[in-house]
Each structure stands twice: as structure tokens, then as C-alpha cells.
């Protein structure tokens, strides 16, 4: 069904192709529901990558703290949000990083939506 995929601007649809690519990364993020796993990650990131058999692209994306790269490596935002939490990033921080804005600009844009008619 790949040939007829709908293209949505600025949006990577998390479908089977992406889900296959990102399985290990998402499995790692899913493990962060448990505090001992979050601590293990913070204690030794590289060992934790290997425990979940992350691909090189996934490792590089996480090392770089770049959310767009994590998405391209197959990460799903519902699971990546748990990693963002560990890294101390709010959803505004994540939004700003992906859109190339400062966090203040990103927040101002959201507030502006509320003020326009």
C-alpha cells in the first residue's frame, strides 16, 4: 500500500513502515514507565541502548537529543514523550526544537492562536 500513501505536511504518519523501523527504540521508551529503568538509562545510556538492541540510527538520534531524528529513526511520540521526560524536556521544548523556534517563540505562537479570532 506504500505507493498510495497520503502525504501530510510536517507530519510523519506512524504506520507499519515506521513502526517496523522504530520497534527497538519504542520498546526502550516503553520501559521508562518504571522508575528503575529510567535510572538505569540515566546511569549508563550506552548500556541501556544495547539492552534494547537499538539500531545505530536509533542510538545516534537519542545521543543527539534531536527529536526529528528520533522520529525518523521510527520513534513514536507517545513513547518518546517518556524519554523527553527523562531528558527534562517539556512538550513546548520538544515543539520548539522541532520547529526551529525558541521556546518563548513557540509558546507565544500557541498563545497567539488563542487571541486571534
Amino acid at each position, binding site marked *: 500500500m506504500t505507493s498510495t500513501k497520503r502525504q501530510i505536511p*510536517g507530519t510523519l*504518519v506512524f504506520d507499519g513502515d515506521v513502526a517496523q523501523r522504530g520497534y527497538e527504540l519504542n520498546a526502550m521508551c516503553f520501559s521508562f514507565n518504571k522508575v528503575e529503568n529510567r535510572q538505569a538509562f540515566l546511569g549508563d545510556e550506552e548500556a541501556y541502548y544495547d539492552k534494547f538492541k537499538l539500531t545505530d540510527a536509533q542510538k545516534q538520534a537519542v545521543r543527539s537529543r534531536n527529536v*526529528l531524528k528520533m522520529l525518523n529513526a521510527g520513534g513514536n511520540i507517545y513513547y518518546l514523550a517518556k524519554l523527553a521526560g527523562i531528558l527534562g524536556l517539556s512538550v513546548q521544548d*520538544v515543539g520548539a526544537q*522541532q520547529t526551529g523556534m525558541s521556546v518563548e517563540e513557540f509558546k507565544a505562537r500557541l498563545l497567539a*492562536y488563542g487571541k486571534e479570532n
Partner: protein
Amino acid sequence: MAEILGGIFASHVPAIGNAIARGLQEDPYWKPFFDGFKPIREWLERVRPDTVVAFYNDHGLNFFLDKMPTFAVGAAATYQNSDEGWGLPVARPVSGDAGLSWHVIESLIADEFDVTTCQEMLVDHALFVPLQLCWPDAASWSFRLVPIAINTVQHPLPSPKRCLALGQAVGRALARYDKDARIVVMGTGGLSHQLDGERAGFINKDYDRFCLENLCPKPELLAQHSSLEIVELSGSQGIEVLNWIAARGALGSAGNLEEVARNYHIPISNTAAASVLISDKAHAKRELA
């Protein structure tokens, strides 16, 4: 006999849970959103439901990609919240209504909905945040819950049309339930928002208005789009409106319904946040008689 008193529709982002934990209801950023729940809480005090049937989506607490159901119906005695990884306080557990759950499951399978049955099910902020908004005093929670999870995480998602049909089938099952139950239906999530990608921060007020205008009188209009069309219109998390569509389906025919309250506020976190209360007129009449 069971009766459906009405339906509550509400956003569910984790930041709201955080604001509740920190007591920010009167803070200028939060007040316009929290105030939307005043008429809902007043209504709930008046109609005294004992059962909540809630459509929501899991955010990676109970379900992972190893076994991702399209529709999952809880059939547990108790539903626990749990650590989701980002520091939200763990909510009090809620009692289940396993008898009603199995009645709904029997009815859905007979109607050819291929649901996954969950006798254990951790429930995340997507349900506990709206419950806290509606019943701020968790210590007094006396209602029983039937949670129904819809996949909004991994495409292909169910179509809005299929979600509406699921809700309608749940509504028929509830109407046939032969035990006493005063039921409120709930749909959580939305409205437009997108956390991921170059389009992060996307909000679409026109589409949100379209949803709010048509939810009560013409839900079939919300089901006219495909799931991918809604992702485009409403954002990759705006698609959580599937939960609203299913919940609206459970309320049945528009002729019996009345919109009692509506609130729409931007922004809450990255989200166009909303709350809606729809009540069943037939129930209201019975109460007066």
C-alpha cells in the same frame, strides 16, 4: 433498567493533571479551562451517575506495539493508574463494573466488533485527568468504570465511521442492560493538537469549531473524513477525537439530546482544549415527572 444520563467530552493532556496536582485551577493561564467544568460538575451532582463508560486512548502505559488492539474493552474488578514516566502523581484506583463490561463485550462480539478483552488494564492520564476534572474529590469516587480504549497510536487507525458504529453498538448494549445503572458516557482527548514533527504546535480552530458545532446534532459529519484526513485537519494527536466520536455514538439519536455546556480554550500546553456536556432529554423528563 440501565439508563444513559448523558455524555461528557474533555481534553486529557498530562499538563492538566500537573496543574491539578499543583492546585493551579484559579491561575490565570488555567482558569479559563477549569471553569468549563463547573457546569459539568453541577450537572453530575444533580444526576448522580453510578457508572462511567469511557472511550479513551492509551499512551503507552497498558499497551505496547507487541500487541496493539484496535478496540480494547476493560473487564476488570479495579482499574489502577500507574507511573507513566513523567512525574504525574498516581491517581486513586477506580472500581470496575465487570458485569456491565461482559454484557458490553457479549453484545459487541455479537455485533461483529472484534474487541480485545482486558481483565487487567492499567489506565493512564487520558482517563484519570477527565475523571479528576469531573470529580475533583477523588476520595469520594463511588462510580464504577467500563473503559474502552481506541488505538490512536499506530496506523492504520480505525476509521471515524467505524468508531461511530462502535459507540452506537455500545449504546445499544447499555440500553438493553437489565440491571440498574445510571450511566454517563465519556470521550476524552483532543481537540486539535500535534506534538511531533515540523508541524508541532499545529492547531486548527476551524476544524475544532466544526467538531463542536456538529458533535451533538450531526455526529455523522465528524465521521465523514478518514482517519488520515483528520490527522491532516486536526494534528497527529488531534485524531484523539475518535474517542469523542465513539462516545457520541453511544448517546444515540440527536433528537433525544441537548447540549448543556461547551467550553473551548487555547492553549492548554500545546492543545486546543475543550469540554462539552450533552444530556439526555428523556432522562431529564423522567426526573421531572
